């Protein structure tokens, strides 16, 4: 938990930043649903490219994404490795067939299909991750609430999501503050001087005050919201939401296309299911 949590609090000036919250939320969900619905590399790969273009168009903030990207690539590779440990011939049921490329023991084999499945899965997870990062980096908590509200979600639920989103950097700040004050009282967290186990135990000790202070703050925030008249009326408006700009009109065509694509993908899965879940080019 170091520099991995970052939430954008003020809107930026790039093309994606200037979109309304409504468009951002709809675009994001279009990408996520499409990526959940399909296992086809012919759709996943272009999506991955598009999300990477989206993220790099927010060039001023790329530095903050670097650490978490390394972490996520590592986690995903570890996950794939664990799947391989549990079931080395995983691709057989999913891509249909097992072309052995490499053999450690009779059980631990490396098949072309499994490797292809892992590649597809990796691309799918990375596309989801890059889409999520682009979304987090380009939206502010208020715009998120406004965007969800524009999509007919009750505003109290929008407020929950928005406060939760806004609160993430505060958790990081509190965690650091508690850690420093505990170190000042003599708690050793240096990797060279303590064992991994004691460090883990000490990190758990930090969590207790973290959770307690967080819930103590509930009263203050709730009072501040009540004083501003939160929850008085059935509907509300948002300062963060503005009129549709030219970007919104262009993106509207794009996300309508994405939703149509999702419908086509789902229709294919229901009415004309392919024999195997993942399309394998060399079968």
């Amino acid at each position, binding site marked *: 938990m170091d520099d991995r949590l970052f939430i954008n609090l003020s809107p930026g000036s790039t093309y994606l930043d200037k979109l309304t919250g409504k468009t951002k939320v709809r675009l994001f969900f279009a990408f996520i649903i499409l990526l959940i619905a399909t296992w086809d590399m012919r759709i996943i790969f272009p999506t991955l490219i598009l999300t990477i273009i989206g993220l790099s168009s927010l060039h001023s903030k790329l530095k903050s994404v670097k650490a978490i990207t390394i972490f996520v690539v590592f986690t995903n590779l570890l996950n794939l490795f664990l799947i391989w440990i549990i079931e080395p011939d995983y691709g057989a049921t999913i891509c249909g067939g097992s072309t052995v490329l490499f053999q450690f023991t009779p059980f631990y084999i490396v098949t072309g299909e499994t490797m292809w499945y892992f590649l597809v899965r990796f691309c799918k997870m990375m596309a989801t991750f890059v889409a999520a*990062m682009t979304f987090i980096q380009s939206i502010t908590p208020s715009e998120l609430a406004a965007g969800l509200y524009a999509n007919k979600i009750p505003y109290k639920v929008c407020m929950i999501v928005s406060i939760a989103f806004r*609160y993430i950097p505060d958790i990081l700040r509190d965690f650091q503050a508690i850690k420093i004050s505990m170190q000042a009282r003599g708690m050793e967290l240096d990797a060279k001087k303590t064992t991994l186990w004691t460090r883990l135990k000490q990190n758990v000790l930090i969590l207790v005050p973290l959770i307690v202070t967080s*819930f103590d703050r509930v009263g203050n925030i709730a009072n501040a919201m009540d004083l501003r008249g939160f929850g008085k009326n059935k509907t509300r408006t948002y300062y963060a939401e503005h009129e549709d700009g030219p970007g919104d009109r262009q993106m509207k065509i794009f996300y309508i296309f994405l939703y149509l694509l999702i419908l086509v993908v789902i229709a294919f899965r229901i009415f004309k299911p392919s024999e195997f879940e993942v399309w394998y080019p060399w079968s």
Partner: protein
Amino acid sequence: MENKKQSLGSMLLGKWDTKTIVGIAIGAALFGVLMDFGGIKVTTNTSLTSAYVVLPIVGALFGPLPAALTGLIGNTIADLIGGWGFWFDWSFGNAVAGFFIGLLPVYGAKIADGIFTTKHAIIYAIVTIIGVGLGFGVVTPVLTVLFYSSELTVTWIQAWAAIISDASVAIIVGIPVLFALAARNKKKTNLTKED
């Protein structure tokens, strides 16, 4: 403290005032962050996570439905910053587990008034195991088949790991935390609330 009789329905729903909304939000943020960074990995995408301490606290303070929403939104936030893809089947599993864990006020454990006895702790442990088992053993696999048909074998392994690790965190860490919270709130009960 006067004992106001609440109907079962209103206890299940919780009181939807501003405090509850903020409580769910902060619970969800904590749940999400702890899910990602506050745990040790067990199997793929499942870890022995400290996030499950958050659910009994939200449940004790606000009731079962807020705890369920905390699990649902918290897990979605964890997916958003975790970068392992979106698994809404698990979000709903967490919501069901959260609902059961958050049943505390329904069987009389009022943490806000400092009431939490050994009897409540035992009921809490049993309900938690039922809830986590139902959430990850039934709801998540069913939704996995609906949403992501090919992932079922992995889900079963993860489900068992999640049931064992999350239930043990919720019980072994959760019960002492609930006792501590109850003891902390008991000191305040000589004050009565003015209406």
